């Protein structure tokens, strides 16, 4: 097999991956650095982020306040040392991206403007209309083009980490265009592959968010952290789950039930619509369960009302919301309330790493939604994620540069033999799956249904156990898949099979961790254990691949200044 040599390889061309790539290219242009992505970088899902990116810029705001909001939002599961680093670096990072061309909205005087966001006690969410992720990603991508030394592998699919004795030496990757597998060697690999959203049916996530990074690490023996924490965003457009940004509430939108009541006064009277997402999402579900939702072809929903903002404000601050409603719901928020319900949105958990992006495996780093640093703990505050991409993307990049200055590469022979093993596995598992009749599509929809119904916003012991059983069955069925597509060029059926395999693996972890965590914390809400239990569960869950299913360990939470207290809004 061909080996292409690199010093640092970044898997993922989203916000995190590109930020890391730029950091490395600036710091050390002589390193052989490459970004590998299964879609063209500007197609990564960062492009879809709407509302904004949080950072302290104003005089009335402090880093401590931002840290406190984040930690409280996380239901005290965030590592506070990491959060402190995060809020501090955030300020520089958002200015840096401004200098790279991001068209942030401005105040009268030409400085960067901010808006309100859920769970934030100050106006600190910077935004580029409601296309923040789009502008951020394009600014990063376009800026990355100026580094001639940065190589890209667009539309290459990473299939496995090549690990020698616990040390990472590169990846095995499929060039989708040619159908040829190659070894991309590297002394350091940074995984920035995004979240797991596609294992849910009703999700705001794009087709590429298939848990690849977590699964790659997991299979290679590394730990993944806090996977049970999944964020449900309050406002998913009915039928598709497409996101209507939180900025629509930040700019003053109301939520109404079918009795025309702003029901959040029963759940979060002080913050109302601007309470954190987990709380708002649960309130909506409560309303729907109590029969106070509207009924439609695709289930019950409630109303997000923007009409009182007026056309001018909607066009200035929320143009994309209007575009999405017109395109995907056939209604205009200027004249009608938007039908919404909570949608799977964000993966708080991910590859276990520290505030410098380092994982326990030498040579493996991670950043972005794929990683779990953890600054989001049990619940992410809206607009902290885009900032996280910048802060921890850059940090992971710098750490990797330091690491490779002393690290020794894994030998070519060793890589060849590792790759050969993986190739055999891939051949056997996906390409010659023999006599089976199972179809990817059927298994996937079963998985997504299960996750929605049993590992959704509210969780209970029995359904979780059932979910684990179903997932195990689906894994068995997966062994009998047959691909109809046997030719090499752009075999999207093959990549879909690998993605499904990854999602099954990680879904298993999520369901298992959710079942073990017998408390309610942030995004993880147990009907049968409705309160937070710091005594038993103030810890991260670390999961490793065991012989027959996931093996869970615990890992302490770092607490610096902010002692856990009850989380009330």
């Amino acid at each position, binding site marked *: 097999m*061909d080996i*292409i040599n690199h010093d640092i390889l970044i898997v993922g061309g989203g916000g995190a991956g590109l930020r890391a790539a730029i950091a490395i290219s600036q710091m050390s242009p002589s390193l*052989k650095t490459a970004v590998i992505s299964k879609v063209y970088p500007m197609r990564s899902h960062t492009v879809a982020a709407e509302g904004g990116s949080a950072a302290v810029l104003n005089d009335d705001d402090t880093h401590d306040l931002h840290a406190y909001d984040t930690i409280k939002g996380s239901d005290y599961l965030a590592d506070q040392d990491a959060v402190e680093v995060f809020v501090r670096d955030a300020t520089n990072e958002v200015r840096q991206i401004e200098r790279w061309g991001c068209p942030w909205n401005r105040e009268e005087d030409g400085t960067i403007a901010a808006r309100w966001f859920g769970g934030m006690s100050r106006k600190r969410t910077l935004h580029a209309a409601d296309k923040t992720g789009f502008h951020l990603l394009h600014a990063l991508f376009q800026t990355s083009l100026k580094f*001639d*030394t940065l*190589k890209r592998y667009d539309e290459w699919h990473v299939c496995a980490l090549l690990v020698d004795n616990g040390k990472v030496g590169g990846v095995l990757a499929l*060039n989708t*265009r*040619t159908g*040829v597998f*190659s070894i991309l060697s590297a002394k350091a690999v940074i995984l920035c592959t995004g979240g797991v959203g596609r294992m849910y049916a009703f999700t705001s996530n794009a087709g590429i968010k298939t848990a690849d990074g977590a699964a790659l690490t997991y299979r290679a023996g590394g730990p993944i952290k806090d996977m049970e924490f999944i964020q449900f965003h309050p406002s998913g457009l009915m039928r598709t789950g497409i996101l209507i940004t939180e900025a629509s509430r930040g700019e003053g939108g109301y939520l109404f039930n079918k009795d025309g009541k702003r029901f959040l006064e029963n759940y979060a009277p002080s913050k109302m619509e601007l309470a954190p997402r987990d709380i708002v999402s649960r309130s909506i579900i409560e309303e729907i369960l109590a029969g106070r939702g509207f009924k439609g072809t695709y289930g019950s929903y409630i109303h997000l009302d923007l009409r009182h903002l007026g056309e001018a404000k909607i066009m200035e601050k929320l143009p994309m919301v209007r575009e999405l409603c017109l395109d995907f719901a056939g209604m205009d928020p200027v004249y009608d309330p938007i039908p919404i319900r909570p949608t799977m949105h964000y993966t708080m958990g991910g590859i276990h790493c520290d505030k410098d992006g380092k994982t326990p495996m030498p040579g493996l780093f991670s950043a972005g939604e794929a990683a779990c640093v953890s600054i989001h703990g049990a619940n992410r505050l809206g607009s902290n994620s885009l900032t996280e991409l910048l802060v921890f993307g850059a940090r992971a990049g710098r750490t990797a540069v330091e690491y490779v200055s002393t690290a020794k590469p894994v030998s070519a022979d060793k890589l060849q033999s590792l790759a050969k093993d993986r190739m055999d596995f891939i051949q056997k598992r996906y390409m010659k799956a023999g006599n089976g009749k199972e179809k990817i599509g059927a298994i996937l929809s079963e998985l997504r249904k299960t996750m929605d119904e049993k590992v959704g916003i509210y969780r209970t012991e029995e359904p979780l156990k059932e979910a684990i059983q179903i997932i195990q069955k689906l894994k068995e069925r997966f062994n009998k898949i047959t691909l109809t597509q046997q030719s090499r*060029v752009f075999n999207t059926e093959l990549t879909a099979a690998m993605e499904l395999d990854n999602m099954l693996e990680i879904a298993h972890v999520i369901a298992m961790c959710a079942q073990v965590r017998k408390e309610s914390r942030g995004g993880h809400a147990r009907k049968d254990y409705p309160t937070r239990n710091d005594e038993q569960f103030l810890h991260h869950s670390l999961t490793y691949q065991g012989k027959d299913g996931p093996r869970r360990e615990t890992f302490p939470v770092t607490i610096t200044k902010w002692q856990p207290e009850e989380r009330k809004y």
Partner: protein
Amino acid sequence: MKHTDNSITEPTKTYRRIMPNTWWLKKGSYTLFMLRELSSVFVAIYAIFLLIRLCALSQGAEIYNSKTAIFNSGWMIALHAVMWVFIMYHMITWFKISGRIFGKKPLSPGLVTIANYIVWVVVSVVLFLIITKG
């Protein structure tokens, strides 16, 4: 890109579609585009006609009058009518495009196009008066 290793990018056979020479007949907007381009031929012909008239003028009354007679013939008038239609089409497309080019904020494309038409009307009336009365 500095460190490409070409061995792995074995090119795949891509399929290249070739545009037929009749491409501009395949789509309404392309055909209208071609008609617009064609209008320039009539612009040129008209300019050449004017030049011919002037040449004749410089060669004395007799030649000028015989040329004028040709221009006054029925088929020449018909030809001019056709040319006029094309030149009107040229004008419409020209104003539309110029609206888009110059209609940046705070102006809008529509506004610029309308302004163009107003100027056009004024110019036409003034010229008409000068030529017929002056």
